[in-house]
């Protein structure tokens, strides 16, 4: 059954890629929007999650508006895929990059990014188009994105094979080489992580829109143990194949000796920056992710 599903998904992905190649961006967005609407209609579990997350965050309090925002978020995901597939055309030369992406990089962040041989940790969330962000940063220095492989290995291979990655490469989140991330930073690369995925270990419950969310501590730990600059950034869509790339001042936290406290100080700041970014463009956030899926057990009342 699983093999059949993977094969069907693979066939669909191939069709979508072929259509995307033949259409100009506006038409490709039109098609992507319709497909996203269909997905929104069919996948009631994710739709419910998205609406419920939006209401829980307080970004929208009216259920009808939350529903509309959830649908916009699904359309956004469709557009992210189209943009990522078409990015090669737009970002190929410097003129194209300059016209497509407005760079708003804090001077401190730019200094760290531009320093030769200096590893930098760049953190973002599922806001805007994180792949365009990584592609743009890779023109400054090589970017290694930490990723979880797709559930469907056929689609994973298809996507990997067709993308002109250039100086943007991927590495699995859990690599048997324990020193992989440390080597990446030592090699003077940008290590890019998305920090808003659910962390099953639940070691760090960080407030996200006022509710505790299990958050990965790896970005914070990398900063604490290597001293590499840690920058929060994101890339918002401002038009058809137009973007605004924002990178904030690097966060610097000195260790106190308490790993948990140090990590959570950093994660709290990063999460607060992510919340601010989401409030700027709530329709460009992946609300369908079950960010609050596990909550700490409440102490039994006496």
């Amino acid at each position, binding site marked *: 059954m699983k093999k059949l599903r993977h094969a069907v998904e693979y066939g669909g992905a191939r069709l979508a890629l072929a259509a995307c190649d033949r259409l100009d961006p506006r038409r490709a967005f039109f098609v992507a929007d319709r497909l996203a609407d269909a997905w929104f209609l069919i996948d009631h579990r994710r739709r419910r999650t998205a609406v419920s997350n939006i209401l829980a965050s307080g970004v929208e309090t009216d259920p009808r508006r939350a529903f509309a925002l959830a649908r916009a978020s699904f359309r956004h995901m469709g557009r992210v895929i189209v943009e990522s597939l078409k990015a090669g055309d737009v970002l190929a030369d410097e003129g194209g990059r300059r016209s497509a992406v407005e760079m708003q990089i804090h001077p401190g962040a730019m200094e760290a990014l531009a320093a030769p041989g200096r590893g930098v940790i760049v953190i973002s969330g599922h806001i805007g188009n994180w792949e365009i962000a990584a592609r743009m940063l890779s023109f400054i220095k090589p970017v290694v994105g930490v990723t979880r492989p797709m559930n469907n290995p056929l689609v994973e291979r298809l996507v990997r094979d067709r993308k002109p990655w250039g100086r943007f490469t991927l*590495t*699995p*989140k*859990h*690599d*048997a*080489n*324990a*020193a*992989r*991330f*440390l*080597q990446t*930073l*030592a090699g003077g690369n940008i290590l890019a992580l998305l920090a808003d995925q659910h962390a099953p*270990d639940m070691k760090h419950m960080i407030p996200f829109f006022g509710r505790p969310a299990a958050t*990965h*501590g*790896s970005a914070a*730990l*990398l900063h*604490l*143990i*290597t001293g590499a600059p840690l920058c929060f950034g994101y890339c918002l869509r401002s038009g058809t194949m137009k973007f605004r790339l924002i990178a904030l001042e690097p966060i610097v936290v000195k*260790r106190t*000796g308490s*790993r948990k406290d*140090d990590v959570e100080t950093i994660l709290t700041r990063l999460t607060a920056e992510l919340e601010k970014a989401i409030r700027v463009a709530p329709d460009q956030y992946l609300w369908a992710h079950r960010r609050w899926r596990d909550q700490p057990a409440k102490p039994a009342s006496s």
Partner: protein
Amino acid sequence: MSNDDILVRLRHLMKQSSQAKVDWDAVTADSTIASLGFDSLTILDLVYDIQQEFGVEFEAEKLAGVKTVGELIAFLRSCMGGTAGEKAAPRC
């Protein structure tokens, strides 16, 4: 500090940060780091704790060649100049 003392302290730190089910008393210098449940993500807690516990500053990426607990002990000894536990914060 002897290698055995370092091993005891490492076992304690590893037990705290690993999520793997391991018989920690059976961990020896020959045990591989990977077999104790550490990968590129889960090693980070341990590195922080080692830097803190042994009072050493080291370029964490130098751990790249370290595959076994024994190699980790040797690495730490080289960082500490063979004088683990003294006041200064050696760096390697």
